[in-house]
């Protein structure tokens, strides 16, 4: 194995983690990562060395992940478990007022330290129900526009907004309970 191939290979676990969290399906994630590594090894000359190897690979991975979503559109949008659940009724009473007033968060990044702050964020994103997690990361990680996401997943803009709304409320709940109570790592 060449040095380049070895270096590429060491990044596989990170690529797998990103692909899994976006795709929420191990088989699709395996395919996306294999396609990425294959593409990278087939044309190492397109890695200019200007950016980091990881940045270059993640760029390729994002395309391969979209390919997978496109290939599995139908399955990727089947709502399971609590995907269909709204938190709204838990947060607001019948007259639309907060049941519990939102709290002041302060600066959790400073309190926790950046590394732990990001670890909590990543964990909370991974805890989103599958369809919510997919659309949320298509928006936040793949940075696709609303109409692109709707097209790739064959859903309406209204569907998408509802899913994103649920995802953000759920993420907030998770962050609130973990950012504000996790003790600082020693």
């Amino acid at each position, binding site marked *: 194995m060449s040095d380049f191939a070895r270096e590429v290979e*060491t*990044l596989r*676990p*990170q690529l797998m*983690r*990103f692909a899994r969290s976006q795709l929420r399906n191990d088989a699709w994630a395996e395919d996306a990562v294999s396609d990425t590594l294959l593409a990278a090894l087939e044309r190492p000359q397109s890695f200019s060395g200007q*950016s*980091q190897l*990881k*940045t270059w690979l*993640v760029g390729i991975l994002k395309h391969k992940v979209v390919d997978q979503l496109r290939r599995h559109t139908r399955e990727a949008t089947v709502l399971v478990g609590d995907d269909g659940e709204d938190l*709204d009724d838990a*947060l*607001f009473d019948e*007259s*639309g*007022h*907060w049941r519990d*007033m*939102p*709290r*002041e*968060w302060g600066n*959790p*990044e400073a309190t926790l330290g950046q*590394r732990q*702050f*990001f*670890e909590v*964020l*990543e964990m909370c994103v991974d805890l989103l129900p599958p369809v919510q997690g997919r659309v949320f990361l298509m*928006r*936040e*990680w793949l940075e696709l526009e*609303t109409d692109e996401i709707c097209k790739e997943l064959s859903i309406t803009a209204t569907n*998408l*907004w509802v899913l*994103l*709304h649920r995802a*953000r*409320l759920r*993420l*907030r709940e998770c*962050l*609130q309970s973990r950012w504000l109570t996790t003790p600082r790592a020693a």
Partner: protein
Amino acid sequence: MTAFRLTCREVTRLVLEGEARELALGERVVLRLHWLACDGCTRFRRQVRTMRGALDRWKAYRDSGTDDTGA
């Protein structure tokens, strides 16, 4: 058309929609009016901003960071 007075539930929906699309001027005005009178929604808005900033930095960190936390 946005009603002049919104409930906290409606304000929350609109604030989160503002993460996905640009809000209309009328919508931004009713939000402002609501925030003037509502501490809960003002804090919620600050929480959403904190989340926004965190997500942007997290994205940069995972895409190009040399940190191998998750490896």
